[in-house]
């Protein structure tokens, strides 16, 4: 795996950029990989569709923009509609279960996973950690980054005093991701 392109998309304020930042930091500071993060943003700071472009590679990254993402994470409908056009066929698509509706024929083009991140975050008491649930699910489903590297990157990137809640949210998302992978395997075995 020389180069993996990731797009995280949502609306400004959901923690989209922070999620991308954590992936990049985990890869380049806490694992022995290279990473770039580019954020596309308009003049509006909050509430409009925004996207983080992350590239993770075993080699120094030359071209820093994504061209055909291997993985897309979408946590708002608008961002999904705006940015999903270039996801690679059969690429990994992770969506927030209650925020994004993906029609069956579109979902069948990709390796699609959903995560009820908002609901899980609400159960933990703070909706604000929804993005960490998504980060956890991403870590389990993609297997791209080491779990402990992502956890270190989270601790290194969030306000002091919020570590426990954020890591708990991450763990819940991670567990959900593992469950999805297990279900997927069982489905494959049933077919076989």
């Amino acid at each position, binding site marked *: 795996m020389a180069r993996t392109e990731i797009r995280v998309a949502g609306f400004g304020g959901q923690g989209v950029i922070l999620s991308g*930042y954590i992936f*990049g*930091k985990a890869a*380049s*500071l806490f694992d022995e990989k*290279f*990473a*770039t*993060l*580019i*954020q596309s*943003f*308009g*003049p509006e700071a909050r509430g409009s569709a925004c996207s983080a472009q992350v590239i993770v590679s075993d080699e120094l*990254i*030359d*071209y*820093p*923009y994504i061209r055909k993402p291997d993985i897309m994470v979408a946590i708002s409908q608008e961002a999904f509609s705006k940015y999903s056009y270039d996801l690679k066929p059969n690429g990994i698509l992770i969506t927030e279960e209650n925020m994004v509706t993906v029609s069956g024929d579109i979902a069948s083009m990709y390796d699609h996973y959903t995560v009820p991140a908002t609901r899980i975050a609400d159960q933990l008491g703070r909706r604000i950690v929804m993005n960490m649930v998504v980060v956890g699910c991403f870590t389990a489903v993609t297997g791209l980054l080491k779990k402990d590297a992502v956890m270190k990157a989270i601790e290194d990137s969030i306000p002091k005093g919020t570590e426990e809640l954020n890591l708990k949210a991450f763990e819940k998302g991670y567990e959900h991701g593992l469950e999805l992978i297990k279900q997927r395997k069982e489905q494959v075995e049933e077919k076989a």
Partner: protein
Amino acid sequence: MKADKKAVLTGAHFIDGDHAAGEGAIAAGCKFVAGYPITPSTEIIERIAARFPLVGGMFVQMEDEIASSIAIQGAVWAGKKAMTVTSGPGFSLMMEHIGFAAITETPCVFINVQRGGPSTGLPTLPAQADMMQARWGSHGDYEIIAIVPNSPQECFDLTIRAFNLAEEYRVPVLVMMDECVGHMTEKVVIPDPDEIDIVDRKFTKKPPGEYTLFNTNGEMVPEMVKAGDGYRIHLTGLTHDEKGYPAMSPKVQQTMLRRLVDKVLKNEDKIRDLEEDQIEDADVVVVSYGITSRVVLPAINKARKEGLKVGHIRLITVWPFPELYIRELAKKVEAFVVPELNLGQIVHEVERCAAGNAVTKLVPHAGGAVHAPEDIYDAIKGVLTNA
């Protein structure tokens, strides 16, 4: 001199080019920044404003860029290292004072995080279209030094070098970033303070009365003084003699201007910083700078894999232009391919220096994004077919 231990955040960071440039300035010993926030450079002064109280610096948000670009020169003459930070429209407003810094030989740093223009243009999107403005934007003859980083790491390293060159040559040094490099986040390793070389200002040891402001004593640049030390000086944007007094004669103009220009041009080889890759056997050499120097790599690698003899020159210092270097190289290669995020600026310098010895092919881009590597590959292929 080595960097101040308190000021350097030694370690590995995942930060963007803007933040890295701010850290570079702090590590270089910058103690005064004046600026007026403008996208995509704002994060630099945000970083500075947050960090300066911890390291004994002063940041002032000025009323505009004109004021910012002269306030820093006041700080320099008060003995500090200083810089200002801006983007396109603000850079246009600063032109007058780049000329003032040049004629008064005030060592200072300007960072321009380039965005699409002209005028308000594309505030949040990249361009490399201020390269000629950096060189010629103020009126009159003068020389500056311009450095172009291509990564957050270089935003840190080269901002330090910018301060060092400013002190060594007593010129304004322009760090010509672009939106892409400024807003890209990547690993930045900040070394131990003992590993960071800092050039300190050469203050005179002569007592007041024996010191003259612009007497070089046979050196390249004169020694400086600072306000409050008891030296009576007259500093002016008018053509001046060695004492600093206005002297508007063709003879004084010739002497003053010649030295302002020569101190940079005659040291071009010492200032020059560029990277060569696979040029030994190259038929075609891609000449690039800034973010474009990363974008060209997939194209060059693809062409090489197909057996095309392509090399790459990355200009890290663009001004003074490496004229002698390109002249010599032009005799050995068939063509230069020059991709830039503008409709043709540095390509004119390459073409001038090639002087007909090699074909020069521009790969233009109006800005707002970076080139598609395919466009650069096609240009390489094109010049080889037509050569």
